């Protein structure tokens, strides 16, 4: 089932804690976009937008939008001091070169090995991978924000992905409305259970063994 606004904001707030001073961060569309609102003002973070901006700032006030200053999701943004514009080859050059410290994105499935599936639903139309493969495969750290289960209540965290992969072994941390789970060498480590869920509710809704 779809997440309510309160849960989406809570996931975003929790994810913001993973962003450290001085990091370069790329936020995917959806819940990841909300993360920027929870970064403390004194923390200096460079937000990267793959349409060609390094140093994305907060959304502009209504009426002050610039149609040519948008993030990769197409929404108006602002700049912070030190920001720069560049073309898409340089935007992805930064990604492929391994200079993005952290990418936060959504997922359809994540495996216990950190495999990520977020671009193909078999039998449904495939709208393309966009920049997801580049970001998932090349970022130093990948955090997935998603609903713990799918629309039918089935686990999205699984032993082996059933969907085609966006990138193998790329996810480092999973944050859902129920839990924070770290992908470790030997499997998934449950780091936090988020209220009001119980440990058992988390374990039951997870399709792979959890270490806790």
């Amino acid at each position, binding site marked *: 089932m779809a997440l309510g606004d309160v849960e989406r904001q809570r996931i975003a707030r929790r994810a913001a804690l993973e962003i450290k001073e001085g990091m370069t961060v790329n936020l995917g569309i959806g819940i990841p976009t909300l993360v920027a609102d929870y970064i403390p003002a004194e923390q200096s973070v460079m937000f990267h*937008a*793959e*349409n*060609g*901006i390094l140093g994305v700032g907060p959304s502009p006030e209504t009426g002050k*939008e*610039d*149609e*040519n*200053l*948008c*993030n*990769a*999701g*197409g*929404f*108006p943004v602002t700049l912070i001091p030190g920001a720069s*514009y*560049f*073309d*898409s*080859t340089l*935007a*992805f*050059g930064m*990604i*492929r070169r391994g200079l993005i410290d952290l990418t936060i994105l959504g997922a359809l499935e994540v495996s216990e090995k950190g495999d990520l599936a977020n671009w*193909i639903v078999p039998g449904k*139309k*495939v*709208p*393309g*991978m*966009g*920049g*997801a*493969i*580049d970001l998932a*495969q*090349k970022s130093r750290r990948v955090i997935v924000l998603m609903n713990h289960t799918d629309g039918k209540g089935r686990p999205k965290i699984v032993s082996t992905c059933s969907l*085609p*992969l*966006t*990138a*193998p072994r790329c996810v480092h941390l999973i944050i859902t409305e129920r839990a924070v789970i770290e992908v470790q060498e030997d499997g998934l480590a449950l780091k936090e259970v988020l209220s009001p869920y119980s440990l058992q509710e988390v374990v039951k809704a997870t399709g792979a063994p959890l270490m806790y």
Partner: protein
Amino acid sequence: MDKNKVVSMEEALNAIKDETCLMYGGFGGVGNPPSLIQGILDKGVKGLHLIGNDAGFPEIGIGRLFTAERVQTLITSHIGSNPIAGEQMNQGKIRVTFFPQGTLAEKIRAGGVGLGGILVDVGLGTIAAMEKMTTKVRGKEYIIEPALTGEVGIVYAKQGDAYGNLVFDKSARNFNPMVAMASNLTIAEVEEIVPTGELDPEGIITPGIFVNYVVQSEGVNWPWHWET
């Protein structure tokens, strides 16, 4: 250099015919050339082969060509923001080929600077690398991705001069500089045409040597999705 490349919209559009392979700048509509797209719609051109980052939105930018059923094939990175293009793909009305966004940008750039292609490892280990030719360099596997070129390239610039030197606006730069280089004939739609010599030589992003025609823009003629 006084070579004057400023032409009327009508003259520029002579280059774009039914089934032309048309490459376009822009990302989510931002940086798509609005007046050239309107001109293509008005002229009635159809069966186009498109190459560009995405399919815009149904009523925004390049997406308008899908809504008006002027597209035959598309090489792109995603069409998630344009459900009409998605529907046409599912119904077999258009044939769509996807590449990872960074790979697509480099394939177009490679065409623009006369390379045969690039070696890239993005997508290895996924179905995006299926049926791709690969090679090993220093023991590491890479996909061989051929360069892309178009018959006509259309770009949207903030300023340009009669020689075709171009400057883009903020995040509207995106794919425009690569597209400006990668076609046999490049048409630049420019918001402000300035006298040659006025643009700062240090700040010119696309040197005029890559541009064949400069046309005056009439500006964006669609509401943005964040406005509605």
